[in-house]
Structures are given as structure tokens and as C-alpha cells.
């Protein structure tokens, strides 16, 4: 029985990895024979590749860092502050988290247009900083942290900033890692926003490059797809252990 289980799950796991593995294999072949030609073409001849790669890195890193700066105090505020309507406000964040992009992208677009931020990097970065996912996850996680540490710290200082740094953030480590992985992957995966909010090719991301695949010769596509995978894979192997403990979303009541 145990052996049967092991075999079944090994096969199932292989099926799940297969698309990634196949992409990698395809990137090293050209017209059916093994070759590095695709990588050579991409890295030495394809001039749009590097700026787009760096745009992807820049946007995703900026959003992830800025989001932490916004959501950690916000989640802390949710867990400590007492005011009327707090529960309702949190439900609002949950509902906003559940909204598909196609609902939020039009409000985003209108807001950005009125501020003159269309076709600027800010148009991509700013709305994503306030995506509600991190707030919900972190506020849920805050419920499980040790409040006595915060109470003890309050006897020594009145500064929220210092309490956050010394007593809250260390306890949030696991959740922060999980959120970093999730948010970075989410930003890295953006397709609609760069396509609709940006006009200049020099500002666009690697995801758009791959999405507009037909414009380029086939040989560079798979190598580009593989290089596009690498940053999230690196983060995944560092941080994936934190996911189950960090994303305590299950019971929202």
C-alpha cells in the first residue's frame, strides 16, 4: 500500500513538473537537434530582451518592498487598534482581494489616467503596492503572534515604529517570506497591466515580450521563457518552506 502510494504520487508529481521540464528541454534544442543557438540569439542578438528583463526585475522588486512597508503597519493597526467598523473594513479588504483583475483594472486605469501616470513605471508600481492580498494574509497571521511581547515592549517605549522593528517583525518572519514569494511571483507574472498601461516598448516587461511571441522568431522564445522562470524559481527554493505556515488564510471568520 505504501509503495503504491509512493509510486502514484511520484508519477503525479512528475506530471506537475513536466511542463516546466519540457520548456527547459525545448530551450536547448533547435529544429529537433540539441543546440544552444536559441540562447546565443537571445543573449547576443535580441536587443529588446535586456531592458525588458530589467524592467520586470525593477517593477517586481519595487512593488514587493514597498508593499511590505505598507502592509506590515496596516496589519499591525488592524490587530491593535480598537474602533467601530474595524470588522467591516477588514471584510472590505477580503472582498477587494477576491475581485478579478478585470473589475479592478478599469478603476486603476481611470485613477492613473487622471494623475497622468499612464505610460510611466509608476502606473505599474503604485496600484500593485496597494493590492489587498498581503494585508489580509498578514492580519490573519498577526492573530497567532505573542501579544505579551508587544505589551512588554510598550512599557519601555511609546514609539510604534520601534515596537514594530523590535517585537513584531521578528515574529512575522515566516509570513513575510511567504508574502514576498507570493507577491513577487504575482508581479513577475503581470501581463494585462503592462499591456494596457504602457505604450513605450522601452518600459514593458519580459512577460509582454513572451506574450507577443509571434513577433519574434521561434528560436529565442523558449530560452526567454526559461530565463523568465529563473528569478521566481530561486525565490521559490529559498522561501517555499514558509508557505503553509505563512499563508494562514483558511478560516476568515
Amino acid at each position: 500500500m505504501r509503495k503504491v502510494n509512493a509510486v502514484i504520487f511520484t508519477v503525479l508529481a512528475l506530471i506537475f513538473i513536466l511542463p516546466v521540464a519540457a520548456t527547459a528541454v525545448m530551450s536547448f534544442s533547435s529544429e529537433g537537434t540539441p543546440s544552444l543557438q536559441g540562447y546565443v540569439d537571445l543573449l547576443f542578438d535580441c536587443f529588446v530582451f535586456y531592458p525588458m528583463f530589467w524592467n520586470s526585475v525593477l517593477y517586481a522588486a519595487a512593488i514587493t518592498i514597498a508593499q511590505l512597508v505598507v502592509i506590515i503597519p496596516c496589519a499591525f493597526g488592524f490587530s491593535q487598534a480598537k474602533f467601530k467598523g474595524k470588522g467591516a473594513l477588514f471584510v472590505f479588504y477580503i472582498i477587494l482581494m477576491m475581485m478579478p483583475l478585470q473589475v479592478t483594472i478599469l478603476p486603476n486605469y481611470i485613477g492613473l489616467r487622471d494623475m497622468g501616470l499612464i505610460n510611466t513605471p509608476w502606473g505599474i508600481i503604485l496600484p500593485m503596492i496597494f493590492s489587498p492580498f498581503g494585508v489580509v494574509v498578514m492580519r490573519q497571521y498577526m492573530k497567532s503572534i505573542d501579544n505579551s511581547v508587544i505589551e512588554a515592549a510598550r512599557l519601555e517605549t511609546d514609539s510604534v515604529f520601534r515596537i514594530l522593528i523590535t517585537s513584531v517583525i521578528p515574529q512575522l518572519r515566516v509570513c513575510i517570506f511567504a508574502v514576498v514569494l507570493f507577491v513577487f511571483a504575482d508581479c513577475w507574472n503581470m501581463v494585462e497591466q503592462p499591456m494596457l498601461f504602457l505604450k513605450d516598448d522601452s518600459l514593458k516587461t519580459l512577460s509582454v515580450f513572451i506574450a507577443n511571441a509571434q513577433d519574434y522568431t521561434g528560436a529565442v522564445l523558449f530560452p526567454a521563457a526559461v530565463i523568465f522562470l529563473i528569478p521566481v524559481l530561486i525565490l521559490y527554493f529559498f522561501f517555499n518552506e514558509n508557505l503553509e505556515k505563512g499563508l494562514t488564510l483558511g478560516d476568515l471568520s
Partner: protein
Amino acid sequence: MKNKLRKHFKWNTKCKLCLLPSLIGTSVFFVVPYIRVLYYSLIDNQFRRNFVWLDNYIKTLTNEYFLLSLKNSLLLIVTAVPILVMLALIISLALSYGIRWVRKTRVAFILPMVIPTASIVLIWRGVFADSSAVLPIYLLFIWKNIGICVVLLTAAFTSIESSVYEAARLDGAGSFILHTKITISMIAPTVFFTVLLSIVNSFKIFKESYLYYGTNYPPDHSYTLQYYMNNNFLKLDYQSLAASAVLTSILVFGIVMAGMAIQRRFDR
């Protein structure tokens, strides 16, 4: 005493201020523009700005492409979501209680969650080259979303403390009945949330579908709500877009509120 009270108020104010950056950003980029979207959905066009009230909604609700897209979106919910959640439950059970080798396969099931769709869709196109069926999109949906479901469910399984089982054993419950009953009641809220999240995520499959077909006009069976909206976006038809955005948000709002109400009943 008075001093302590003042200190409490000061602390409370500071904590409230912590919420402010997030609230301001959310208002600027979501809430205020959403109110304008509501306004756009009620006027005839952006230049004349005459109120036509529900005309745009009626136009949207009778548009055959909107209805087609709605039907396809609902079909995805009733077919792929149950399969996704069942599969995730089986995998999570194995990952939580299986032998070490089985536990190690976890990395493979969670990985798709972070893999950029743009990278993977090339292979999908290669494998399902001539397929005109919906199957590739459903498979892509399940592949992409199984990770988050497994993460949430595994967390729920492993958070059931052994002390709960022991307490029940002392009360004289038999081993098999015991495990099943306790496990079901302890993970029910999470299973429920997973279903809710998957329904909501099925609305987000547009990116996968768009990248797979590489066009704004996919085969009829895959024309989901988001295509309808994206195409109106490209046509700069703000009124139809606003109306369908509002309708979709009402639909999602309804699903989430109903879901949370049911979950609250579970807890009692």
C-alpha cells in the same frame, strides 16, 4: 488612572494611523475610481454625460457575447472547481499523513503557483496544437491553482493538534471514526474557503486563456467574461466596460458574502 487612559487613547490613535497609508492608496487607486466607474456606467458617453440610468446594463445583459462569456465562466466554475478541490484534498491528505517520500513530492504540487504563465503556455500550445476543446484551459486552470489549495489544506491538516485526537480517544471514540470525524470538522472551514477562493480564481483565468490563444477572439467556448471586458477596453467603450465591471463585481461580491455567511454557520 486618567493618565493611563490618555496613554491608551494616544496608543490607539497611533495604531489607527498605521492603517492610513494602505487606506489612502486603496482609496486613490480602487475606491474613488470605482465610484467613477459606477458613474460612467450610468451615462451615455464621456462627452455628453447624459444620464441614461440602466440602459448600459440592459445593453450588456442582452449582449450575446456577454451572455456567452458569462455562460463559459459559470461552466468553468461548476466543472473545473470541484475537480480542483477534490484533487487538492487528496494531495494534501497524502502530504500530511503520507510516508516521507510522498511528503517530498510537495515541492512539485506547489511550484505551479509561482511559475509565470507566459513561460508555460508555449508548451501548452505545442502539446494541444490543434485542440479546439476547452480542455487545455481547464487543465491550465487546475495546474495553476492546485498549489494555493494544497498550501491552505495542508496547513489545515497539520494544524489539527494530536491533543485533540487524544482527548477524543479518552472519551472512548474508535480510532477510524474518530479520525474521520475530527478531521472533517476541523478542516471544513478551510475546504470551504478553498472552494470560494477557487471560484473567485476561475474569474482570473483570462491571462492563461489569453496567452494560450494569443488573440482577443478565442473559440466561442472559451470566450469568458474577461475577454468581453478586455475587448471593450481595447475599443475604449467605457460605458459597456463600466457596466460589465460593475456587474462582475456584484457577482463576486455576492459569492464572497454568501460564502462567508455559510462559513460562519459552519463554525457554530
